[in-house]
């Protein structure tokens, strides 16, 4: 870092340990930031769309992840640069809010930054660029509203929803079974959706994955699946009309929080102690039994004695059920979580039609199905797949598809995919640019160019000539006044995305454009980066 000297040649020290820090200022700072952010968006560009490629990520511990989900890639990439981290958060917030379109938002932000670089080089002030982008963004949103369409569905006919979910799944490894998975997702959503409030609580849908079998074996379970086994090998494996006692207290004598000692100094006391101990166990199991329960789920373990007593009383018991799962089960079965044995009562028991243990494959693996719960609004998507990586990727894909369907229930409007909506927006924005006087015009025009990045990337990834395709599509959209024309990624011979059934939600598209614009504005505002020497170079 350069130093400033006073008239006696002594350096001014402004920052602590100034000589160890580097500082990038002004346009250079913006350029360096943009370069960092572009590195990430370039990486993701090839993952966009149904023909996008995957990334293989090896974590610090050597675990391998194969995915083309933007948010996952960025999360696992182990990014250090601060600005690049902003991009990671961008994808993350799209993932949290919408669940899908994480790759698209990063690619769009990257394209906007690239255009901003051109504008900066022309000597346009960053603030002006921001203003221009802002205006263009509004035009986009308006245009999206215009071209959006409402889809109709109800519990019996949901063909359009299937198509929307399939659009999401088509870009993933699982696309071979996209139809099947899409239907599973929709049925799951329908069983938990609240159509009155137009909302879906995704917490009620548990996605449980287990390695083994094939993707076709994936099923929707009308209830909960626990990745646990029954605590005693000879307990009943199937319980019908289950009354479930959900415990968060261990099967053991009470353990006060305050420190205490119990001194035993005589034989009598020793005997009493032993008696009391056994009494505890018997009492606990008896209480469970008396309440009428026939299944016990416990958050803690229980020792051999308790285990055997439970078995002797004909109870099916599961130990070490995790906190989240306990809550889910309680929610699903309308049971109450019972924190102390003294509070067990019949009213607090959860109810389910059937509880059963199922063994998988040739190994010891068991899972417990709790089906036909009292609360029908709790379902589990039980995924199977050939390898751990495939199952993990399936899990991520299903999450995306679930989000997509949920968004459609919140807001039934859709736009067409395949880059068609971006082209329509781009056309609207460049038309608008001509009407704006002032420097912003250039920024607005560049925004339109940036929007083209999405169809360009789609075409590139599908092995089409991107410039030819884009030009042809733009001309066709203008000529036919048809905003549904997009890139024919799958080579089906049609540009009309309605025929190809490529649906995206309006919510997701709007969010993508807004988030990307916001991020770019933020990066453009940074004009000074101070950091330790090695962080920047």
């Amino acid at each position, binding site marked *: 870092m350069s130093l400033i000297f006073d008239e006696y040649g002594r350096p001014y020290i402004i920052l602590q340990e100034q000589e160890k820090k580097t500082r990038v200022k002004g346009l250079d700072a913006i350029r360096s930031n943009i370069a960092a952010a572009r590195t990430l968006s370039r990486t993701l560009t090839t993952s966009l769309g149904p023909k996008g490629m995957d990334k293989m990520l090896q974590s610090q511990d050597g675990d391998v992840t194969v995915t083309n989900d933007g948010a996952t890639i960025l999360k696992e*990439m182990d990014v*250090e640069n601060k600005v690049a981290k902003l991009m990671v958060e961008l994808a993350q917030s799209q993932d949290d809010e919408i669940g899908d379109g994480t790759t698209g938002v990063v690619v769009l932000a990257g394209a906007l930054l690239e255009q901003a670089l051109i504008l900066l080089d022309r000597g346009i002030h960053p603030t002006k660029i921001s203003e221009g982008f802002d205006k263009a963004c509004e035009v986009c949103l308006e245009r999206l509203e215009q071209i959006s369409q409402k889809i109709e569905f109800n519990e019996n006919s949901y063909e359009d929803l299937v198509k929307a979910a399939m659009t999401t799944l088509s870009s993933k490894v699982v696309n*071979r079974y996209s139809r099947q998975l899409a239907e599973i997702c929709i049925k799951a959503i329908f069983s938990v959706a609240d159509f009155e409030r137009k909302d879906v609580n995704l917490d009620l849908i548990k996605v449980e994955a287990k390695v083994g079998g094939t993707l076709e074996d994936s099923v929707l379970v009308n209830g909960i699946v626990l990745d646990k086994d029954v605590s005693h090998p000879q307990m009943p494996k199937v319980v019908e009309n289950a009354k479930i006692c959900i415990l968060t207290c261990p099967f053991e004598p009470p353990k006060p929080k305050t420190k205490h000692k119990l001194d035993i100094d005589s034989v009598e006391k020793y005997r009493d102690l032993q008696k009391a101990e056994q009494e505890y166990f018997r009492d606990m199991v008896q209480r469970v039994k008396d309440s009428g329960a026939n299944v016990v789920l416990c958050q803690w373990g229980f020792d051999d*004695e308790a285990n055997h007593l439970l078995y002797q009383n004909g109870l099916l018991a599961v130990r070490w059920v995790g906190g989240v799962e306990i809550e889910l089960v309680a929610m699903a079965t309308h049971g109450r979580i019972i924190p102390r044995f003294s509070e067990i009562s019949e009213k607090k028991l959860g109810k389910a039609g059937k509880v059963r243990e199922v063994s998988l494959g040739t190994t010891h693996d068991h899972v417990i199905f709790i089906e036909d719960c009292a609360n029908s609004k709790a379902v589990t998507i039980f995924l199977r797949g050939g*390898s751990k990586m495939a199952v993990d990727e399936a899990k991520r894909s299903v999450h995306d598809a679930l989000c997509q369907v949920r968004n459609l229930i919140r807001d039934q409007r859709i736009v067409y995919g395949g880059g068609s909506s971006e082209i329509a927006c781009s056309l609207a924005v460049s038309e608008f640019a001509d009407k704006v006087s002032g420097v912003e015009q250039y920024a607005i025009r560049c925004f339109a160019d940036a929007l083209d990045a999405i169809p360009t990337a789609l075409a590139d990834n599908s092995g089409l000539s991107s410039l030819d395709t884009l030009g042809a599509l733009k001309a066709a959209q203008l000529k036919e006044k048809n905003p549904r024309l997009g890139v024919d990624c799958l080579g089906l011979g049609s540009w009309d995305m309605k025929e190809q059934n490529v649906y995206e939600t309006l919510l997701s598209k709007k969010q993508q454009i807004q988030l990307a614009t916001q991020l770019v504005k933020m990066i453009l505002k940074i004009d000074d980066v101070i950091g330790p020497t090695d962080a920047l170079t």
Partner: protein
Amino acid sequence: MQVPRYQGPAPHVLKRDTSEEKGEEARMSSFIGALALCDLVKTTLGPKGMDKILQSASGDIIVTNDGATILKSVNIDNAAAKILVDISKTQDDEIGDGTTSVCCLAGELLREAEKLLDAKIHPQIVVSGYRLAANAALKALEDAAMDHKANFEQLKEDLFYIAKTTLSSKLLAQSRDHFAKIAVDAVLRLKGSTNLDHIQFIKKTGGNLSDSYLDEGFILEKSLGVGQPKRIENAKILIANTPMDTDKIKIYGARVRVDSYNKVAEIEEAEQKKMMEKCQKIINHGINCFVNRQLIYNRPEQFFTDHGVMAIEHADFDGVERLALVTGGEVVSTFDHPELVKLGHCGLIEEAMIGEDRVIRFSNCAAKEACTIVLRGANKQILDEAERSLHDALCVLSQTVNHSKVVYGGGSAEMLMAKAVDDLAKTIPGKQSLAVEGFARALRAIPAIVADNAGFDATELISEMRAAHQKGDKEAGIDIQNGTVGNMAKLHVLESFKLKSYMVSSATEAAEMIIRVDDIIKAAPRRREE
């Protein structure tokens, strides 16, 4: 418009030591890794495959030709290779056999894909071609599959031949008839359950492999307490899991504090008495044999001996569970309600000898699911490999009992699928057909590897087989004894349909996953604390 380039120092985006490989470079690194792994296990494929010696860091030696075992034991740093290891592991968990084949098929698919990519075909086109091909292959396989579920005798015969086929590629090949019979008998006892825990292996060095046998009862590798009855007829067995020294005090914070030596003695006395009461309770169950998972100390043992009860200590957890299963008893931890406890029953408990070791044999048991396979062999390595081989066979058989479809082995199933895939390729317009053809070549590479490993002229054999299949002879396969094309139906080379279909679908899945990758990001390994 030319995008102006940023002139300053390139910003550091990823964490230090994190490496990124892109595009061609990434593809090359994953292909090379996967192919290297495939070449590693390739030579073990088929009846004449070679074995590998694996030496662990601690110096233990394993001799095996089981793909999953080999792959599990090699340390791999290549991400793509890890995917192959993973699929072969899953194959092992799901089916139990075919672990080498699945890895080889995935490798061959990648080898073909590499050629296609070199010819400038987009990876996604290769992937979609492979998918079409895999569907066609699976359909052809399903059409050719035979199901003998209805006819039990026929099913039993099928199982026997499948076991023979599976075992032929293993160390047990010399006495495969013998072992196939053992495996079939053992699996049929399970009556459709796939829980192989019920089949116990006992390995004793000495004798030779053909001295191995299936024992209908249950064998516990334990010795009896001194002075206890050596033979009990009509045994009533109590199987327990309980501490037999002193019970742990389970009330938190309780401790024993005494102020004189006398008290110590008294408490010790009370402790002992408590134990004896427990023993008395156990005996009150009216038993004549007591098996505990935990240790039985001398005093209780002596007490049992005095009451004519046979006491067996420290049977491991699996042993206890199995014993409970065979004898129909339950595993007990409290003894206050003798009337509620289900005791195990068996006709005869006696001390037996295997080799030079004394064991306890429970025969004529109440339930008949479980059994014991006693393996004999010259050294530990042979026994371990024999166990692995037999375990593979048992896995396949237990799956086949439920999914009883079978197909012909000896490469005929692969040739059959390859033919269907080839036929499909001719009907596809467009570049995908090249990928479909590649898939067929990869399928044919499997029998070629088998033939190569056996030292035959693979090219000649494969083309003869292809011609035979083209003529409609769906039973043509490699006759591994004579090095000619033979009729698999006559040679009784059968394989499980589930195994083959699983192999094709998971190998395709894995290959697809690797082909689709265009970027590899490796995080720096976590620093270990020195």
